[in-house]
């Protein structure tokens, strides 16, 4: 006898009414699901328009990698295995049910044949049983993690749906899986077909039921079939009202992820976001997509240092508002101001939520209402007036050049190959001016044809934008663009990662490189040769705006290698680099809340723990933040922080 899928085994014969009821309920559930889905869509549509390319190869590739194959969980093996098992378990079982429905209600009912027969059917049974076991295993891992390992990041302060949702989701899926297997086992125990062995799980379980008599088996089968059906229907109907909705919203969020320069903020209204409908529809989809995993919170330097910010909490508060579970203020001001815009949260988010963008949007509203603390207000006033946050005359911007043995070309007056955009901190901070001079020396020695804008340069506006002063950002950008247009140069180069990001990604199509890329090229082409090898062991801190924002990780490392330096990586390196805490305007603000350990101190301790003597940086703010942190952490004498340029300058000195 050829293997073939039994049609409504037991139900058709003995409980025919249930067969019809199932279809009726199924129809009802489908309607409820669609209605629930529509509630979400309706809420997303409250958002402002956002024009993006909706379909393209990149989106498809991203979807496959990140949605289907959980790409962002790759570094968390436990979670990866767990979620792949649950996801594919459910997917295959759902597919199996769909095939069974088509087999019955389409091919059999309408065309008189079944395709779930023969070897195909046997394979079908085997595969489904394997995935059912995988699903159960995955759920077991999930229960273990949530209720035994209890990682901090899984805790919620806010529940956009309802407090027991996480438990509910795991429990109902487990119940569906187990009842499904029991139904199969009971059927196999009763009917005992020759091919029962292909259902490896069900058949094993069936052995326990074989002693029962046929009537008992049929009754039990019916009961478990009802239970399984009801559980599945309840689950589906409740999807739009529980965390399970992430099936839809997370997929959508991943599909709609930001393409284009990483972390680049779009032009926005200066008034910022005061209510949910001020966000764009895509942002609202993102808030709805959060799976409460808390990885963003784990990465957040503000959170780790004891400040009131948790990116997870920000998103959940917004999600709760979206779902009507919360009213009033979107997110409190202390939370918003604590952010350094380091992007560690965005980088790790499995569903591609853009937390920094939402925070900046809400900050713009605070700024437009004048709700900013004094230190920040002073910095913005100085930036608006003098084009730098130090409150010094714009005419003093190039004072650092005094003391150089040569005159740097003025790109406003003569043509240069590289226009070096120096940046505020490198120009005005007395602790950094020696490094800036060292940089100029190196360029000169390397024969680079470079010039600066002297007094015409202004703060690039990167941090001004991220603080929420969009109008001031636009003004600074205008002034800098005017200066660029009047100057004569071929390429823009900057030593400041914050400026790099703004100039490259948020100005008007400028071609900008970071000085480490230039150095890398010079070393590789042989135009620059170290006069000696620096036989030191160092560690390197990836600046947020160079690494996570602009993907430049290797050029600085190749430069270090070219210098003969031995590099030992800190545990948190490359895209997991730990912010120094100065970004997002934080360097202009006071600390709020109970500070456990400032981010910069945590970082220098991490470096010191490696036993290296030197922490190398490639960003001016990192240099001063770490210098201060070394003092307050009591590591003077144990760890020194140096700019990459200082090492290059040293290596270029003729061997003694």
């Amino acid at each position, binding site marked *: 006898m050829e293997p073939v899928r039994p049609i409504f085994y037991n139900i058709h014969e003995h409980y025919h009414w249930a067969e019809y009821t199932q279809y009726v309920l199924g129809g009802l559930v489908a309607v409820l699901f669609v209605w629930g889905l529509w509630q979400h869509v309706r809420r997303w549509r409250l958002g402002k328009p956002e024009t993006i390319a909706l379909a393209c190869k990149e989106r498809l590739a991203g979807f496959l990698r990140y949605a289907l194959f959980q790409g962002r969980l790759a570094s968390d093996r436990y979670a990866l295995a767990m979620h792949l098992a649950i996801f594919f378990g459910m997917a295959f079982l759902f597919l199996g049910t769909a095939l069974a429905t088509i087999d019955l209600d389409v091919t059999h009912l309408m065309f008189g044949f079944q395709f779930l027969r023969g070897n195909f059917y046997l394979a079908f049974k085997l595969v489904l049983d394997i995935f059912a076991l995988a699903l159960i295993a995955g759920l077991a891992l999930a229960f273990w993690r949530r209720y035994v390992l209890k990682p901090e990041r899984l805790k919620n302060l806010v529940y956009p749906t309802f407090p027991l949702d996480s438990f509910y989701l795991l429990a109902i899926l487990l119940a569906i899986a187990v009842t499904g297997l029991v139904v199969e086992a009971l059927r196999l125990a009763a009917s005992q077909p020759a091919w029962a062995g292909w259902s490896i799980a069900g058949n094993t379980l069936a052995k326990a039921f074989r002693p029962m008599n046929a009537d008992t088996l049929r009754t039990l089968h019916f009961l478990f079939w009802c239970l399984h059906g009801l559980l599945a229907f309840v689950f589906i109907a409740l999807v739009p009202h529980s965390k399970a909705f992430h099936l839809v919203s997370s997929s959508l969020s991943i599909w709609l992820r930001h393409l284009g320069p990483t972390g680049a903020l779009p032009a926005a209204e200066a008034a910022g976001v005061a209510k949910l409908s001020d966000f764009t529809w895509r942002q609202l989809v993102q808030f709805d997509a959060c799976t409460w995993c808390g990885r963003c919170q784990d990465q957040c330097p503000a959170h780790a240092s004891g400040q009131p910010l948790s990116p997870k909490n920000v998103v959940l508060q917004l999600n709760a508002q979206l779902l009507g579970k919360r009213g009033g203020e979107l997110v409190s001001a202390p939370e918003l101001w604590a952010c350094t815009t380091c992007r560690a949260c965005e980088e790790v988010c499995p569903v591609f939520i853009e937390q920094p963008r939402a925070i900046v949007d809400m900050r713009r509203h605070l700024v437009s209402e004048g709700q900013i603390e*004094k230190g920040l207000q002073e910095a913005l006033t100085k930036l608006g007036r003098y084009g730098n946050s130090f409150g010094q005359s714009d005419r003093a911007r190039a004072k650092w050049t005094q003391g150089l043995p040569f005159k740097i070309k003025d790109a406003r007056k003569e043509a240069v190959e590289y226009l070096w955009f120096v940046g505020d901190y490198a120009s005005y901070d*007395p602790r950094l001016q020696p490094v800036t001079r060292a940089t100029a020396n190196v360029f000169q020695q390397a024969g680079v044809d470079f010039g600066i804008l002297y007094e015409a340069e202004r703060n690039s506006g990167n941090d001004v934008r991220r603080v929420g002063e969009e109008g001031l950002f636009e003004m600074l950008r205008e002034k800098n663009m005017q200066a660029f247009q009047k100057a004569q140069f071929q390429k823009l180069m900057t030593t400041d990662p914050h400026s790099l990001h703004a100039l490259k990604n948020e100005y008007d199509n400028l071609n900008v490189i970071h000085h480490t890329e230039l150095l890398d090229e010079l070393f590789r082409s042989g135009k620059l040769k170290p006069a000696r090898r620096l036989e030191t062991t160092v560690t390197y801190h990836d600046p947020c705006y160079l690494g996570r924002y602009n993907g430049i990780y290797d050029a600085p490392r190749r430069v270090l290698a070219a210098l003969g330096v031995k590099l030992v990586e800190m545990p948190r390196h490359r895209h997991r680099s730990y912010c120094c805490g100065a970004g997002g305007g934080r360097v202009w603000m*006071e*600390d709020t809340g109970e500070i456990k350990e400032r981010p910069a101190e945590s970082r220098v301790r991490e470096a010191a723990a490696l036993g290296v003597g030197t922490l190398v940086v490639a960003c001016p703010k990192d240099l001063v933040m770490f210098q*201060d942190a070394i*003092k307050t952490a009591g590591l003077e004498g144990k760890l020194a922080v140096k700019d990459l340029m200082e090492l290059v300058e040293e290596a270029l000195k003729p061997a003694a």
Partner: protein
Amino acid sequence: MASNIWVLAETWRGQITETTLELLTLGRELAGQTGGPLEAVLLGDKSLAAPLGAADNVLCAANVAPTPEAVAAALAQLVRERQPQAVLVPWTNLSMDAGALAAAQLNAPFVNGCKDLKSDGGMIVAQCVVYGGKLEAAVAATTAPALFGVLPGSRPAAAAGNAPTVTEVAVSVPEARVKFNRYLEPETGDVDITQKEVLVAVGRGIQQQDNLELAESLAAALGGAVCGSRPVIDQGWLPLSRQVGKSGMSVKPKLYLMLGISGAPEHVEGMKNAQLIVAINTDANAPIFNVAHLGINADLFDVVPALTEKIRAVKGGA
């Protein structure tokens, strides 16, 4: 008379202020140059006139309310009647209003912020501090009478000398549109900084309230107290009772150690008579280095911990 030099005597809480006595010294010099007498104008009870012996004459008018309006009206009336060449008014919160108002009523100049005065070719020429102390102007009054707002500290205080000659004068004061209600005392701070021998002063350079700790430790090691310049008090990091300067306290400690204070004139006014002034500032060009006796051009965050430690070591050992 065209060569009289007047000094507006200001009284504070029933006493002639020190600045008034300084102005008498300057006034005497000026009177010597113009050839006229030096007169003090006391708008209060004549019993307060005792310290004004350095003046040739004290014009005393009682029953003048302590409001700028009343003082100005009385002063302007006297000036109109008697036409002195110059009236020296203390350039203080207390008297500048009255001086400015009187000058307006007389259509006379009120020369601001004078640190010195001399007679030159029949005109009084003032040396004025302008642009926050960055520049100085030599300003001549082209008409007489003219009023001059003179900064505290221009001269040493004049000794009381013999009992002054008091001439009682009558002034009619218009109906008051400004009435004095009461004084608002600063919250009694735990500490009276004017009595301390050692003061550690903090300015904007301290950057954050948390960093006050550094100053507190240093002050404790030295057996002194912490005080501050106006910006620090405005931020709320220290109470009003700790403010040193034009609107705050005037102090004369044995040691005044300044951390991150640039030396704006309003602050300097309150501490320039300290015996030993030490300034720590990262800006080598800060005006404070022209006022201080000793200076360290470095970051206070580097120097202060080291300093505190060493002081403790010395004291601990001693």
